[in-house]
């Protein structure tokens, strides 16, 4: 017997509560990265959960102080690798806003198109992994089949398949290739049918519903108090979407609905995200119809762009909640301080308070439905 075991055996109180501490992660199939959850279990019931983050901490905010605004764009991809386009956006928007640069309208439209497509791709990854956590393996393959089409579109656009680095301060790096628009339309047409298949396969399934309905309820008060944003907040019934409530880019020109949940349980979070994918398709379609012509980037912006002294906080609606950049410039070509506010960080902070009393399996279902992504938490 190991020394450690002997020690722990001595401390066992035979009359006391029979709790065990289980380390879920950092390497575990259901923590979607390197999240570590130190869970105290009483049988299968959770007594306490303490998330330990930081395994992916790369000090992006420190690196941002040592890079020009352009150089940092590829690093913003790494904030949320499932939605790189959405992570690019707040950074370039913050630099533009502080520097007084207005990107050309075509660039704004292209940004909306790629961001919404990436939102669909990101939600597909969530759909796949959430159901994988619940033990259904097949949906994973369907979701990745469709995500692959979006990735192909992006590859056509910028050559990269995961970390695009597509946006620039003052626009986007390249114009859309000729076949992008027809292929995107084709994808949307395909995806509207595919999502019906998803519903048939999963949404009505009785096992899925008993696993999710009334599990992991997050009240609207708690959600707001803990700074939860994105689909998780809307699933609790709080109508708060930055695309509508604090419009940025060209979002005011599109019609779209904000799907809302009623109870804030895992099933509502599921439904809200499914509806968001449909709405994103609508936005992409409208943007393709209205796409103006013209340049896609402000011409002759210096590579070593200097941004006047000042501060700005720009926030956008990323797939996992509010992603914002708080940019402090002292007039140099590098940021003096950049704080990156991400959705998952606050979403994870509410997670331990949702758990006590739930079963271990519920914990997996809840964490799956909350859609954490670890690089976004650790940055």
């Amino acid at each position: 017997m190991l020394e450690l075991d002997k020690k722990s055996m001595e401390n066992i109180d035979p009359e006391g509560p029979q709790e065990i501490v289980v380390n879920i992660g950092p390497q575990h199939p259901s923590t979607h990265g390197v999240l570590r959850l130190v869970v105290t279990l009483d049988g299968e019931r959770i007594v306490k959960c303490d998330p330990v983050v930081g395994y992916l901490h790369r000090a992006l905010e420190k690196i941002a102080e040592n890079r020009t605004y352009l150089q940092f764009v590829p690093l913003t991809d790494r904030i949320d690798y499932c939605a790189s386009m959405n992570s690019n956006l707040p950074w370039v928007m913050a630099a533009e806003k502080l520097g007084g640069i207005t990107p050309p309208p075509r660039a704004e439209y292209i940004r909306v198109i790629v961001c919404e497509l990436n939102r669909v791709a990101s939600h597909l990854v969530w759909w796949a992994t959430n159901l994988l956590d619940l033990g259904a393996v097949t949906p994973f393959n369907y979701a990745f089949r469709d995500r692959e089409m979006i990735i192909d579109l992006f590859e056509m656009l910028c050559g990269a398949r995961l970390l695009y680095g597509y946006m620039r301060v003052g626009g986007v790096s390249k114009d859309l290739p000729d076949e992008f628009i027809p292929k995107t339309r084709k994808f949307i047409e395909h995806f509207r049918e595919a999502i019906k298949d998803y519903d048939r396969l999963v949404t009505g399934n009785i096992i899925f519903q008993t696993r999710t309905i009334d599990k992991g309820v997050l009240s609207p008060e708690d959600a707001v108090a803990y700074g939860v944003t994105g689909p998780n907040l809307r699933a609790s019934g709080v109508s708060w979407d930055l695309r509508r409530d604090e419009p940025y880019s060209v979002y005011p020109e599109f019609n779209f609905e904000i799907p809302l949940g009623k109870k804030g349980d895992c099933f509502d979070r599921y439904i809200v995200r499914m509806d968001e994918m449909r709405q994103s398709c609508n936005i992409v379609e409208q943007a393709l119809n209205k796409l103006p012509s013209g340049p896609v980037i402000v011409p002759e912006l210096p590579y070593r762009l200097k941004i006047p002294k000042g501060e700005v906080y720009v926030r956008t609606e990323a797939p996992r909640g509010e992603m914002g950049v708080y940019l402090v410039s002292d007039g140099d070509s590098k940021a003096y301080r950049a704080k990156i506010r991400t959705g998952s960080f606050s979403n994870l902070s509410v997670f331990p308070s949702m758990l006590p009393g739930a079963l271990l399996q519920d914990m997996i279902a809840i964490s799956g439905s909350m859609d954490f992504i670890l690089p976004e938490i650790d940055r």
Partner: protein
Amino acid sequence: MNRSEIKQKLEEKFSCYKFSDDPDNPEGIIIQPDALLDVAKYLVNDIDLAFNFLNFVTAIDRGSKFEVVYMLSSIPLKHRVLLKVAVPREVPEIESVTTIWPTANWHEREAYDLFGIKFLNHPDLRRIMMPDGWEGHPLRKDYVHENMVHLPDMG
């Protein structure tokens, strides 16, 4: 509600504290450290302000002092404000706002971890990003680490 209106309301309510506009940030209000808790409670509870949502807490290293930054928004009223509190570098201490916005718990832990700002009465002030035994606070401007590389300045 914009900054001047919010500031006016604050000045009416708290005549004992001083409020000033942040010259850098069009939505920033600089407040005194000892006013923080009172102001925060008022911002949450007043029906015309209703700042029920704390976006983040962070800090800026300004050399001789740290500026602790609170970004607030109001979900029902759709307006936002940025509070700034300056704390001295030698004694970087400030009251925690965790009791008012629970989300501040993790954000303050992050600011503590990366800047070394001590939040008083915080329920669980541990490092969050860095390993437990880490020395120093990485986001301070004077932080050095043997593996840090500074890119050459390109022009």
